[in-house]
């Protein structure tokens, strides 16, 4: 490696400490990583330079433990415009329009300060999407909390939900979907994964690569304060007792300013003044400026004293590492500064030219005229540490014999227990705090279908309404039991949920939440999950276009359940041909699609009624998945389906109960002749299955059989009860009370 | 000169936030806490040096913006 000779070695700032091994360690750099730094720099770094390396080489920014594995995921398809590597993924949805989306975690900050952590998580992912030129049209979020009995859980749920609501509602973006689970493995390390979907014209997409030597670099948005300094390094280390005292490093969000920033950016994007644009997320000004210069193969000079500051006495180190929110970096075409400034001033936002592009491939930082940092850009990226950490795959547990799992002694009680358990109880208490209707495009609301369905604004005027279906899915207990199966299942379930509303699944964003990658069994979970996901994404033509990795999700050495959250997007040409899951009409035939073996291993039934988390998770046959799904989608868009629900947690009976409750109509079914025990038939979690309500049951069954798809007519909708012939008759109202009262009751009870 | 403005809810106006704070304090082991009323504290840096004039101006600010006199009272304290 050759290093260009340094013309302007940096000056030391007053009070600048001497770099000691201790200071290096505090910056999260391993001794060999520091050696690498010295080789690149050819001298001892200044504090600001050390801070920059530390941030750029943190797990959060460099993906040093995960990169080798992420490369195994498929990222291409004819409809993919931009895969991983930009702020968000971009796919073509027809009519000259693109969907731009990504999911991102804000786990550690949300545990420390749930309201602000979750709020700024939403703010960050929104910026990732509108940075690329899209107007956000929907938010989703996947939340995992600890055991409800844990002393902190209630406070965390309350704060996280209020934070998501506070930010998303103020921004005026509907929060239309998501999922919430509880498990003791998240007691000290909750997960907050936020996803945003936006829409832009395919010829008006903005990227981060800087271009044009001499062009101005412009800072817009909020002023910089001392928020979250070292947030990126913080979220790359394990939690310990000390993290309770790390509170001040959590950044505070201002959704009002972000709303102004959104409008101002979109207004500027409507002109042709922008060359490149990048939001300041983790590691703030450092990573945004580096990425822009590195992607453009250029260098830059930044005059840090020109950065708008909120507090007095700030220094270059703080300015480069601050994670103050609601800020953007823009490269403008020369001479367009005044035009841009006018727009930002109209929206009452800061605007400052803080530097310009050079051909040196170096980042030169100045402070009142003195050079305080001078780093060669390419080696910082190309020489970044990358690890193929040792990994051990989790062996597949033996299959659990359903015959050895006891049937419920009281069927009624069993269904009431499942429908009111924390994972399956209604989450209405949560989503009623989210404005899920603003923009007037929400066609399928939370609990109204397997995926949220939102009309695409700006599509050509026609009688039909094009829609985007979106969902987020993962079954962490399956991933824990066998990561490959769990990874495959998470992707398949997302694909199934998009299918179940009648939409064509298009692409995926993944949010990989795992424990400490330096432990071979954790790295093995990561590797296994990726292998399963890759296989499913390939088989289902469901490429990964964006994503985020969150590692070190451990407390005192105890890891979370491995949680590769899959966010997915699909398209439907006409919302009028979609289907929700609400059973609103009597006399409809209920047809079960897919084969039922009665798989009880790792089922919710096993866990909630027998306190056991055992066995192999249900296998996913991807060819069957695709065949069944394609059939179901055809029936839905052919308008032969009134309602459709995929079978997941809790199996057939829970799916039926959810359909009945959502639509306020009862149902009566009879189990077909089979050698599967009734409790395994009703509560087993075999994959690739759907429950469909239709006018003509026999016709649907016949069509399915013609397509080689297993299908059986189980019964009809109607009446005030949910009835399984010979086993169960439960008034819907009693079921509703159990299902809907758990969460509000829990949240309102004394700590 | 500095003006410190306290904005509080009028007596008789329900204060759900105050009530929630009271409940939480009771729950946290402060049974001695009875009624809780919450409000806002606003500090203003003023160029004015004349106390009488300053008071009149801040009064006007309170009536026009800082307080909603339908439900809120305000009090003003001048310092320095």
């Amino acid at each position: 490696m050759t290093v260009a000779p340094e013309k302007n070695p940096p000056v030391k700032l007053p009070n600048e400490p001497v770099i000691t091994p201790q200071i290096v360690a505090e910056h999260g750099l391993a001794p060999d990583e520091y050696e690498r730094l010295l080789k690149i720099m050819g001298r001892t770094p200044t504090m600001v330079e050390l801070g920059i390396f530390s941030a750029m080489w943190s797990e959060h920014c460099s993906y040093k433990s995960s990169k080798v594995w992420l490369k195994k995921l498929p990222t291409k398809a004819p409809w993919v415009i931009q895969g991983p590597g930009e702020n968000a993924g971009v796919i073509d949805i027809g009519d000259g329009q693109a969907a731009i989306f990504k999911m991102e975690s804000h786990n550690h900050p949300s545990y420390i300060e749930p309201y602000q952590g979750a709020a700024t998580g939403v703010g960050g992912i929104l910026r990732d999407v509108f940075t690329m030129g899209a107007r956000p049209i929907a938010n989703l979020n996947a939340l995992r909390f600890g055991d409800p009995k844990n002393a902190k859980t209630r406070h965390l749920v309350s704060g996280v939900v209020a934070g998501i609501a506070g930010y998303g509602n103020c921004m005026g973006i509907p929060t239309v979907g998501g999922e919430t689970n509880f498990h003791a493995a998240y007691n000290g390390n909750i997960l907050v994964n936020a996803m945003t979907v936006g829409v832009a014209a395919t010829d008006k997409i903005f990227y981060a690569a800087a271009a044009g030597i001499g062009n101005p670099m412009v800072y817009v948005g909020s002023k910089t304060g001392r928020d979250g300094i070292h947030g990126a390094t913080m979220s790359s280390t394990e939690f310990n007792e000390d993290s309770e005292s790390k509170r001040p490093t959590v950044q505070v969000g201002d959704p009002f300013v972000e709303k102004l920033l959104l409008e101002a950016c979109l207004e500027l994007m409507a002109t042709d003044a922008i060359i490149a644009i990048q939001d300041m997320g983790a590691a703030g000004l450092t990573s945004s400026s580096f990425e822009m210069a590195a992607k453009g193969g250029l260098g830059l000079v930044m005059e840090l004293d020109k950065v708008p500051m909120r507090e007095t006495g700030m220094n270059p180190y703080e300015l480069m590492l601050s994670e103050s929110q609601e800020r953007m970096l823009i490269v403008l075409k020369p001479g367009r500064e005044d035009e841009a400034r006018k727009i930002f001033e109209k929206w009452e936002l800061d605007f400052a030219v803080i530097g310009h592009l050079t051909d040196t491939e170096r980042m030169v930082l100045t402070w009142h005229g003195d050079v305080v940092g001078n780093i060669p850009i390419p080696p910082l990226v190309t020489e970044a540490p990358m690890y193929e950490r040792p990994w051990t795959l989790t062996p597949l547990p033996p299959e659990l014999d359903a015959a050895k799992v006891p049937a419920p002694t009281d069927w009624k009680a069993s269904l009431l227990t499942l429908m009111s358990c924390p994972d399956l109880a209604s989450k209405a208490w949560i989503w009623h705090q989210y404005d899920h209707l603003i923009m007037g495009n929400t066609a399928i609301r939370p609990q109204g279908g397997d995926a949220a369905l939102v009309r695409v604004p700006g599509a050509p005027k026609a009688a039909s309404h094009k829609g985007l279906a979106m969902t987020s899915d993962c079954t962490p207990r399956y991933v824990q039991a066998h990561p490959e199966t769990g990874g495959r299942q998470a992707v398949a379930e997302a694909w199934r949920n998009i299918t179940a509303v009648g939409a064509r699944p298009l692409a995926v964003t993944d949010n990989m939440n795992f424990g400490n990658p330096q432990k071979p069994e954790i790295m093995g979970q990561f590797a296994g999950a990726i292998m399963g996901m890759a296989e499913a994404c390939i088989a289902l033509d469901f490429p990964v276009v964006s994503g985020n990795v969150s590692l070190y999700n451990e407390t005192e050495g105890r890891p979370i359940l491995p949680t590769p959250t899959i966010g997915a997007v699909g398209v439907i040409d006409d919302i009028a041909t979609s289907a929700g899951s609400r059973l609103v009409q009597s006399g409809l035939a209920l047809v079960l699609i897919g084969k039922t073996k009665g798989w009880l291993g790792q089922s919710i039934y096993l866990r909630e009624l027998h306190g056991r988390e055992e066995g192999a998770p249900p296998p996913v046959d991807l060819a069957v998945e695709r065949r069944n799904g394609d059939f179901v989608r055809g029936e839905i868009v052919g308008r032969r389906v009134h309602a459709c629900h995929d079978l997941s947690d809790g199996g057939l009976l829970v799916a039926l109960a959810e359909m009945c409750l959502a639509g306020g109509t009862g149902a009566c079914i009879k189990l077909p002749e089979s050698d599967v025990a009734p409790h395994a038939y009703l509560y087993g979690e075999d994959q690739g299955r759907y429950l469909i309500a239709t006018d003509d049951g026999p016709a649907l069954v016949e069509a399915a059989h013609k397509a080689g798809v297993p299908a059986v007519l189980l019964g009809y909708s109607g009446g005030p009860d949910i009835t399984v012939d010979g086993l169960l008759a439960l008034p819907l109202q009693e079921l509703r009370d159990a299902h809907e009262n758990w969460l509000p009751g829990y949240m309102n009870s004394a700590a | 000169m500095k003006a410190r403005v306290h904005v509080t809810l009028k007596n008789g106006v329900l204060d759900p936030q105050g009530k929630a704070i009271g409940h939480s304090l009771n729950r946290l082991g402060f049974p001695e806490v009875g009624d809780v009323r919450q409000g806002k504290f606003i500090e203003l840096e003023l160029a004015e040096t004349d106390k009488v004039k300053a008071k009149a101006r801040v009064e006007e600010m309170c009536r026009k913006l800082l307080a909603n006199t339908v439900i809120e009272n305000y009090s003003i304290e001048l310092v320095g």
Partner: protein
Amino acid sequence: MKAAVLVFPGSNREGDVAQAIELVTGRRPQMVWHGDGDFEKVDLIVVPGGFSYGDYLRCGAMAAQSPVMAEVKKRAAQGVPVLGICNGFQIVTEAGLLPGTLMRNSHLKFVCADVHLRVETSQSLFTNRYQAGQVIKVPVAHAEGNYFADADTMKRLEDRGQIAFRYCGPDGSIIDGRGNPNGSSSNIAGVFNDTKTVLGLMPHPENAVEPMFGGTDGKALFEGMVEALS
């Protein structure tokens, strides 16, 4: 009907109401920036929902002091109809165009849900397409919709028929505050000024104008205004 929709920093449902007006009139309303004290003559002024100025200090307080609101007050005094929805209702009360105020929801949380409203009178330019006593379903989405006014004001509102909408059960009944999403006094969801030319309401009729996107119960409000103002 020529309509103007005001836009403040932080407004976010101006597009929704503009879309509803366009759907009914076939014409895009004029969008008016908060700093513009002067704007074209119109038949209706809409103050839309959102979080003007981030809802900081008090919802609607800062927007109520903007140049555009000074102009709105002047025109309202001349009888130009004003419709304030959600944050717009808060702004209009802060500006003194309607009595009372909107306080924090009694349960302290933001609430987004469909609610049932009982139309209290059809005798206004806003409600002429509804029947008195009719029950409609439209959504609410707010954290501060808890209507409050002193006893004298409440009595005056009742006596003069200035209550436009009340939250109710699906059958129109109001028992023990049933159907009330925010703790509002007397289940009030919307009120008129004494000439019934200004209406403020917390629910969002603009999000209930299309069958596949929330139903159509809010559409008659816009159709009624078109009929009265064209």
